C-alpha cells in the first residue's frame, strides 16, 4: 500500500463508565503520539449522534483512512461505528474497535492508574492493527423464494401453511404415505378433548388446498447441497429421484414414542404404552367388562431410567386418557402413579383439577423408588411405594399403561449429517442458542420446529411451526442475503488438501475438492463462512487467511502489546 496511513482515534468516556476510572485525556494525549495517528479526541459518548458526527467530520477534515474507537464493546457498537465510517465514505472495514470499558474500566474499577495504563496499551495495540487493515467488500447473494419443510406433522404443516400464506412456494416432505405425524396416533386432544382425527383433517385439507404447497409423500431426503438462499435438496420420492431448489430449509421431523422393551413387564397387551392405549380407545378395542382397574405409570424410561430428560407431555397425556376413561367408564378405578406432576401453565393445572374431580386417583412415588410391575397367579400387580406410609402399596391392575418419553427418530442422525446441523446430548436437534434462538440453527437458512427440537405439546409445536416460518420468511422476503466479508480464504499454493480445516469447521463452509488430477485443495463457500477462525488456527501449512484477522494484523497487534511504535 502506497497511500499514507492516517489514523483517527476516538476515546469514549461512556459517561462515568470509562471516564470515572480511566484518565481519558491522558489516553488521548498518549494516542496522539503513536505512529500513523494524525488525530485523537475524546467524546462523552462516542455513540451519541454528536460523537458520530465528530467521527464523520474528522474523517473529512483530517483525511483519515483508518478509524479507531476505544469504548464499550464491539458486541453492541461495532456495527454502528462501521456504519458511521461508511457514511463518511470510508470502507467500514478500515475501522478498529478497542474495548476499554467491558475489558478495562469495569474490571479494574478500583485501580484507576493501572486501568489507564491498560487502556493506553489496548489503544496502542488497536492502532497497530488498524494500520494494517484492508478494505473489504460485503458479499450479497440472491435467495430462491422457495422453502423446503422436512416433516409434515403438525409443526411442519403449520410452518408450510404460514410460509405459503405469506406468498412463498413450499415443498413439504413427508417420509410416510400420509401427512399428520404423531398426531395420527392420538385419540383426543387436551385440553379441549376434541378428536385428533378431525383436528388433523382440517389442517391436511388446508395443506392440500394451498396452491403454493407441494406435498411430497413417501419421500426422504437423500442429499443436501448449497447454503442459505441456494440449497439443492435431492429427494427420493417413492423411488424416484427429484431435485428441489430452495432458499431455506425447515426441519420438522418430529419424534417417536420410546418403546419400553424389558421394562415394567411391557408386553403390548396388558402392559401397554399411552399411544397404544389411544389406539385402543380410538378403535373401542378394550373389553371394559374385564377391566376393573387401570394403573398408569409415569416417567417410564425417562428422568434417569433410560433417557435423562423429562418428556414434558406425558403427565398431561396420562391425565387426559385417565379422565377420558373415568368419564366414559366411571366404575373403572384409574390410578396415575407419578413423581413430579407436570401440569404446568394455565389450562393444564385446571385440567388436572378436573381429572381429580372426575375421580382419577394420583399416587406419588419417589424417583429413587419407582413402581414395580409383577405377575402373581396370572394377575398383574403394581407396587407403588408410598412415602408417607413408607411401604409398597400393591394394586391389582387389569391394564397397566406406561407413560414413556418421546425420543428422537432413528434417522435424525443421518439428516443432521446431511444438513450439517448438530444433535444435542438428548439426541434432539440442537438449536443455535438455548435461550434466545429456539428455532434457529447456527447454520444460516436452516430452521427447526416441533418435537424434533424436544418433547412438546401440540400448542407449543404449532407456536414453533409459526416461529420457524417467521425466521425463514426473513431471507425469503428480503430476496438476498448479505454476509460479512470477515471470512477465511485458502491460498492454494500453500494448501496440501489435508482436510483438517474441513473436519473442524462448525458450519460446513470449507471442504476439500479435487482441483486437478491427484491434487486436492480446500475451498471456502464464502456465504456459509462465519469467520470464526477455527480453520485458520488449525491449518498446519498456514494456508488459510482470515480476513480482518490476518496473521500480519494480529502479530502487529500482539507485538504492540510489548513494544511501542511512536512517530
Amino acid at each position: 500500500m502506497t497511500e499514507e496511513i492516517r489514523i483517527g482515534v476516538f476515546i469514549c468516556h461512556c459517561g462515568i463508565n470509562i471516564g470515572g476510572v480511566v484518565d481519558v485525556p491522558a489516553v488521548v494525549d498518549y494516542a496522539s503520539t503513536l505512529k500513523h495517528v494524525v488525530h485523537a479526541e475524546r467524546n462523552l459518548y462516542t455513540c451519541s449522534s454528536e460523537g458520530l458526527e465528530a467521527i464523520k467530520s474528522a474523517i473529512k477534515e483530517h483525511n483519515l483512512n483508518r478509524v479507531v474507537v476505544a469504548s464499550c464493546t464491539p458486541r453492541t457498537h461495532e456495527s454502528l461505528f462501521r456504519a458511521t465510517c461508511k457514511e463518511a465514505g470510508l470502507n467500514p472495514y478500515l475501522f478498529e474497535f478497542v474495548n476499554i470499558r467491558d475489558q478495562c474500566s469495569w474490571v479494574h474499577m478500583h485501580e484507576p492508574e493501572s486501568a489507564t495504563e491498560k487502556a493506553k496499551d489496548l489503544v496502542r495495540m488497536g492502532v497497530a492493527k488498524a494500520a494494517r487493515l484492508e478494505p473489504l467488500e460485503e458479499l450479497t447473494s440472491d435467495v430462491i423464494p422457495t422453502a423446503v419443510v422436512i416433516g409434515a406433522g403438525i409443526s411442519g404443516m403449520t410452518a408450510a401453511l404460514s410460509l405459503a400464506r405469506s406468498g412463498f412456494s413450499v415443498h413439504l416432505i413427508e417420509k410416510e404415505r400420509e401427512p399428520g405425524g404423531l398426531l395420527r396416533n392420538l385419540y383426543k386432544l387436551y385440553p379441549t378433548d376434541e378428536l385428533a382425527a378431525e383436528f388433523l383433517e382440517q389442517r391436511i385439507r388446508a395443506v392440500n388446498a394451498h396452491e403454493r404447497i407441494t406435498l411430497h409423500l413417501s419421500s426422504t431426503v437423500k442429499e443436501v447441497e448449497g447454503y442459505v438462499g441456494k440449497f439443492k435438496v435431492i429427494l427420493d420420492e417413492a423411488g424416484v429421484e427429484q431435485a428441489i431448489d430452495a432458499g431455506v430449509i425447515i426441519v420438522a421431523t418430529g419424534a417417536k414414542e420410546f418403546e419400553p422393551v424389558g421394562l415394567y413387564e411391557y408386553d403390548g397387551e396388558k402392559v401397554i404404552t399411552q399411544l397404544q392405549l389411544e389406539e385402543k380407545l380410538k378403535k373401542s378395542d378394550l373389553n371394559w367388562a374385564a377391566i376393573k382397574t387401570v394403573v398408569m405409570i409415569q416417567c417410564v424410561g425417562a428422568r434417569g431410567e433410560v433417557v435423562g430428560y423429562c418428556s414434558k407431555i406425558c403427565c398431561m397425556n396420562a391425565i387426559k386418557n385417565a379422565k377420558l376413561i373415568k368419564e366414559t367408564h366411571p366404575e373403572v378405578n384409574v390410578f396415575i402413579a407419578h413423581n413430579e406432576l407436570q401440569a404446568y401453565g394455565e389450562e393444564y393445572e385446571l385440567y388436572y383439577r378436573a381429572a381429580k374431580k372426575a375421580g382419577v386417583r394420583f399416587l406419588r412415588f419417589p424417583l429413587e423408588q419407582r413402581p414395580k410391575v409383577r405377575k402373581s397367579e396370572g394377575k398383574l400387580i403394581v407396587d407403588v411405594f408410598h412415602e408417607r406410609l413408607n411401604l409398597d402399596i400393591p394394586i391389582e391392575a387389569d391394564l397397566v399403561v406406561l407413560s414413556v418419553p418421546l425420543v428422537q427418530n432413528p434417522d435424525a442422525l443421518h439428516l443432521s449429517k446431511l444438513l450439517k446441523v448438530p444433535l444435542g446430548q438428548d439426541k434432539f436437534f440442537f438449536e443455535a442458542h438455548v435461550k434466545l434462538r429456539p428455532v434457529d440453527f447456527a447454520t444460516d437458512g436452516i430452521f427447526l420446529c416441533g418435537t424434533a427440537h424436544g418433547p412438546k405439546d401440540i400448542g407449543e409445536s404449532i407456536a414453533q411451526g409459526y416461529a420457524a416460518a417467521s425466521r425463514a420468511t426473513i431471507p425469503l422476503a428480503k430476496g438476498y442475503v448479505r454476509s460479512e466479508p470477515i471470512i477465511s480464504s485458502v491460498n492454494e499454493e500453500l494448501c496440501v488438501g489435508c482436510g483438517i480445516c474441513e473436519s473442524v469447521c462448525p458450519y460446513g463452509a470449507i471442504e476439500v475438492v479435487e482441483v486437478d488430477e491427484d491434487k486436492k485443495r480446500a475451498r471456502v463457500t464464502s456465504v456459509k463462512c462465519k469467520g470464526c477462525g477455527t480453520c485458520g488456527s488449525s491449518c498446519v501449512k498456514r494456508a488459510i487467511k482470515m480476513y480482518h484477522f490476518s496473521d500480519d494484523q494480529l502479530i502487529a497487534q500482539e507485538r504492540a502489546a510489548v513494544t511501542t511504535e511512536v512517530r
Partner: protein
Amino acid sequence: MQAAFDLAEAGIKVCLVEKTLSIGGRMAQLDKTFPTNDCAICILAPKMMDCYRHENIEVLTFSEVISVEGEVGLFNVKILRRPRFIEEELCNGCGDCARVCPMGILNRFDMDLRVRSGAYIPFLQAVPLIYALDREKCMRCGLCKVVCGKDAIRYDQKPELVERTVGAIIVATGFDPLDPSDITEYGYGTYDNVLTALEYERLICAAGPTGGHVVRKDGKEVKRIAWIQCVGARDTRDNRPYCCSVCCMHATKEAILTREHYPEVETFILYTDLRCFGKGFQEYVNRAKDDYGVVYIRGKPGEIREKENGNLELFYSPYSDKVEILEVDMVVLCTALIPSEGVETLAKVLGIELDEYNFFKLRDPYNPTETTREGIFVAGYCQAPRDIPECIAHGSAAASRAMEVVLGGSDDRRD
C-alpha cells in the same frame, strides 16, 4: 422485541410501543438465565440495540396505545407519548442531570432496593439511553436545567399524541410479579428477611444494588436460605389456580447462583410439584442437587414466624403427620407472576378479550397467537405462563402471522 425484529428483518416497518422508559422487559432485571446460566443483560442488551437501531423499527418508549380503529390490514392506532421532560433528540445520556439532582427515589427496576435520583434511566444499559425527570417527586430546584450542556431539559413538556397506520398489531405486555403482602402467613412486608424472587435476583446481580452481595437488612451474613414455591399461585383463595411454569427453575437457578457465590450457604427449595419439564431442565435440577448440594423439600410451609434475631422459622409438613420446622435466615418467595397492570384497559382499547385470570384469550386454543380480534396477535407471558425461549418462539410466531397479513394480502389470510 423478537416479533418486532423478525418483522423488521423481513422488510416490514414496525412501531414498537413500550410503556416504560426502556425496552427489554423483565429479562433485563434478571441476573442469569436457566438452564445455561448465561448473563441475562449480556445476551439481552445486543438484542435491545439491534431493535433500537433497526432502520425498520421505530421505538416509542414511555408511550401507551390509547385507541385503535379500523380492521385487519388497516388499523389506525393512537399512541400517547408521556413527557420525559427532556428533549429526546437532544439528550445524549451523559447523566449530568442525574448527578446534580438532590432527590432520592426508590428505583422500581431494582425492586425498590436502590435509590436513584429524580433524573434517571431505569438501568445502566437502558435503551434508548435518554434520561427522564420524575416530576411527581421533583422539588423544582432547577439544577438539572443549569447543568445540562445540551439544553435538553423541558419542564413544560406536554404529553404528545401520535398516530400510526398499521396492518397488524401484536400484544406482548408480559407479566408483573404478585405483591405477596396479602399472603399474611409468610409475613412479607412485615418480616425484614422475607424477599420476593425478583428482589433476590437484584441482590445477587453484580450490577444490582448490593453489587451481588447477599446481605440482610441488619447486615448479618446469610447462612441458610429457603425458597418457597407457588406463593399465590396454584392457589384458589385468590382465584389463581394456574401454575406460573417458570418459578421452580427460577428458584433452582437462584439457589445455584447462591452456592456459586457462597459455597458455605445452605439452600433449600420448598415445593409442591417440581416443574422441570423444558429442554435441559431435568439435567439442570440434577446438577443443582448433585453438584451444588441444593436441598429440595416437598412441602409448602403453612406459616413463617420471625424470631427475635430476625431468623425465620418455616412450619411445614412433608411426609409425616408431624409438623417440621426449618430455621433459615432469609426466605425468598417465588410469587405468582400475573398479567401486567393495565391489561384490562389495553384489552378494551384493542377490543380483545381476556380470560378469567386476565391473560389474553385465544380465539382457538391450538392457534397460539390468535386473539379474539382478527389482525391482533399475542405473544409471550401475557397470553399464558411461559419461559424465555418459549416467549421468543411465541414472538416469532406472532410475527409470522403478522407477515401473512402484510406480505400475503387479504385473499389468503385465513384458513
